[in-house]
């Protein structure tokens, strides 16, 4: 019997309950209307009320049962005399058990380990029993809830308010899901970071200048010297906060000014979506654009101006392409904040005899500055968290240099490198990825927080 059956049964019961309750409410309505009154709630609400009382307990139970019954089945099988012959060693034992389970549920019919055969029968029996129990309880819960709710239906029963409350509870749960997920992510990050700092001193990590973890080395070897993340922080800042912004800020700002102040509505209607397409290009596409097209160009350029160390993976290539990727962020934030400057301000300047560009330079940009700055901070936080472009174009060498033609590595690159290796999860090299992630998370969190509060204050100023 498939585990989907209890759920289907619950749904069928719910439908029946809905129809029955609505029918009952219709009948009630007929009665009270004869007496010149009316129902408190429309018949549909009575239907939903009963259906919810059937579906919610039944479905909650099926979910809970789906989570617990495999454990019960296993306990039952292990209590069987056939299980006494199982090897004690965990890995082999688990393999045999899961093979027996697969055979019993019919998802496979070939068997590799012959000793699994003996356990098929106990498994099949236990599964049948527990599925039957689960289905019965589901149906009983649904029936119980439905009958309880159905008996409460009266002409003056406030079904509508109750259904509304249930809707609200459902929406609340949906929004809590996202919050709990975030909390869970942060929690795991904190936990693993803490484990990392048991190996490596936080100060050595934050201020050290040599980065060279070896996931194959003995866990405690070189922990004092090879986990200095400063080169990664510098690489991240150099690419994401300096070079990318040198590209994105002027281009983004100027396109925002053109689009809000100079473009005719037709031009704006075409150009704005085209610009926003940039934001929709997958970052991996930017990555190979950077690695295959831009990086060689920049290497040749560097060599032609006499930079002998110009490499085929360079900070400049990654930074420039990242800057291009960020343009839509800067321009749409700048666009919004320029548009939020009241028309009266522009008129005031124009009426003084200022030209369009004087008005933009002396009035609009200063007035929109807080919003523009906030947009830039969001763009920076996006840029330093960006991974694909730097993985493909910036290189893996951890070093501190100001030469943009050399290759350099970033925090995100090293997170990828540390987690995709062969290292085990209690080795400091692997754990360092979490500490790096934590730093990145805290920095972007701060940037976003500051940016959003700046935007908020700026919005209030013009209301």
């Amino acid at each position, binding site marked *: 019997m498939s585990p989907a059956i209890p759920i289907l049964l619950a749904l069928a019961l719910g439908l029946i309950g809905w129809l029955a309750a609505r029918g009952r409410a219709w009948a009630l309505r007929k009665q009270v209307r004869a007496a010149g009154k009316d129902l408190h709630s429309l018949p549909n609400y009575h239907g939903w009320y009963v259906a919810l009382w059937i579906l919610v307990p039944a479905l909650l139970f099926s979910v809970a049962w789906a989570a617990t019954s495999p454990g019960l089945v296993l306990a039952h099988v292990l209590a069987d005399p056939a299980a006494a012959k199982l090897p004690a060693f965990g890995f082999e034992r688990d393999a045999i058990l899961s093979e027996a389970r697969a055979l019993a549920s019919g998802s496979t019919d070939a068997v590799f380990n012959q000793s699994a055969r003996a356990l098929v029968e106990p498994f099949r029996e236990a599964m049948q029993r527990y599925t039957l129990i689960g289905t019965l309880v589901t149906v009983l819960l649904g029936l119980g809830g439905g009958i309880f709710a159905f008996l409460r239906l009266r002409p003056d029963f406030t079904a509508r308010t109750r259904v509304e409350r249930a809707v609200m509870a459902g929406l609340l749960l949906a929004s809590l899901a996202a919050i709990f997920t975030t909390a869970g992510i942060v929690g795991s990050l904190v936990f693993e970071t803490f484990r990392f700092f048991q190996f490596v001193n936080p100060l050595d990590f934050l201020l050290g200048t040599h980065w060279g973890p070896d996931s194959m080395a003995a866990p405690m070897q070189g922990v004092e010297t090879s986990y200095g993340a400063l080169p990664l922080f510098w690489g991240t800042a150099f690419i994401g906060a300096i070079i990318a912004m040198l590209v994105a800020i002027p281009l983004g700002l100027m396109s925002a000014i053109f689009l809000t102040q100079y473009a005719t509505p037709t031009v704006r209607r075409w150009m704005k979506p085209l610009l926003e397409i940039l934001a929709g290009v997958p970052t991996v596409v930017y990555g190979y654009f950077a690695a295959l097209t831009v990086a060689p160009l920049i290497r040749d350029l560097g060599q032609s101006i006499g930079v002998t160390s110009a490499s085929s993976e360079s900070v400049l290539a990654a930074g420039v392409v990242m800057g291009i990727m960020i343009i839509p962020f800067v321009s749409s934030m700048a666009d919004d904040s320029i548009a939020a400057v009241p028309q009266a301000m522009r*008129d005031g300047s124009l009426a003084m*005899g*200022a030209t369009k560009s004087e008005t933009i330079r002396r009035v609009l940009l*200063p*007035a929109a500055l807080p919003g523009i700055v906030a947009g830039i901070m969001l763009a920076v936080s996006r840029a330093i968290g960006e991974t694909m472009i730097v993985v493909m174009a910036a290189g893996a060498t951890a070093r501190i240099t100001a030469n943009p033609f050399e290759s350099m590595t970033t925090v995100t690159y090293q997170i990828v490198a540390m987690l995709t290796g062969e290292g085990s999860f209690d080795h400091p090299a692997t754990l360092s990825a979490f500490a790096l992630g934590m730093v990145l998370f805290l920095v972007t969190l701060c940037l976003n927080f500051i940016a959003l509060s700046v935007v908020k204050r700026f919005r209030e*100023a013009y209301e």
Partner: protein
Amino acid sequence: MTNFHDLDPVDARIAARGVSVYYGDKRAIDNVSIDISDEYVTAFIGPSGCGKSTFLRALNRMNDTIAGARVEGEIKLDGQDIYKSGMDVVQLRARVGMVFQKPNPFPKSIYENVAYGPRIHGLSTSKAELDQIVERSLKRAGLWEEVKDRLAESGTALSGGQQQRLCIARAIAVEPEVILMDEPCSALDPIATAKIEELIAELRGRYAIVIVTHSMQQAARVSQRTAFFHLGKMVEYGKTSEIFTNPREERTKDYITGRYG
């Protein structure tokens, strides 16, 4: 046809003849002719949407900033057609200043607000000269005593009435010939309104002033000439005293006695 009262012959600073303003296909102003003199405050009155603000904005070409707006006819400032292609809008707006409905100081210091116009038009050659212009303008706008100790503070931190006087100071800092005021008191309380009205009386004679207002009492108090607009046409134009006591047109009479508006 517009009903002109017999007016004393004056030298018109602004002479408008047969002016129509269109927003796209919609005609907002229909064939308006009027002379505006230096000596008087001229009030434009009329119900909402009658086109009085549109006509006011035509006088310094502020309608140019609205897409699809178009002006026909002729508006002469000192005998020079302001819609001729040779006319420099920047020059025109330096000569015809404007004060808006809602006070719109720039988010800069009080000093910088007033210095804005002189700076963009290069009216001063030294800091001392600029200081003088700022002080003189604030004095004329009746704001100097209130702000002289805090010129570096933001103009937007002032009260609404002070902001509006700051905007007037900003407008007169470039020594315009005409000041257009588009319902300058509609966002202000009665006390601030009284101050602005006093100020208008003081500025009269130095600049030609045109004021658009919703308040007929205000028109009666501050102006010597009144034009009544209705549905895009100028219905009647004459001495303020006559318009309010002895209107020639039925529609004017209905409006000022509060029958519609």
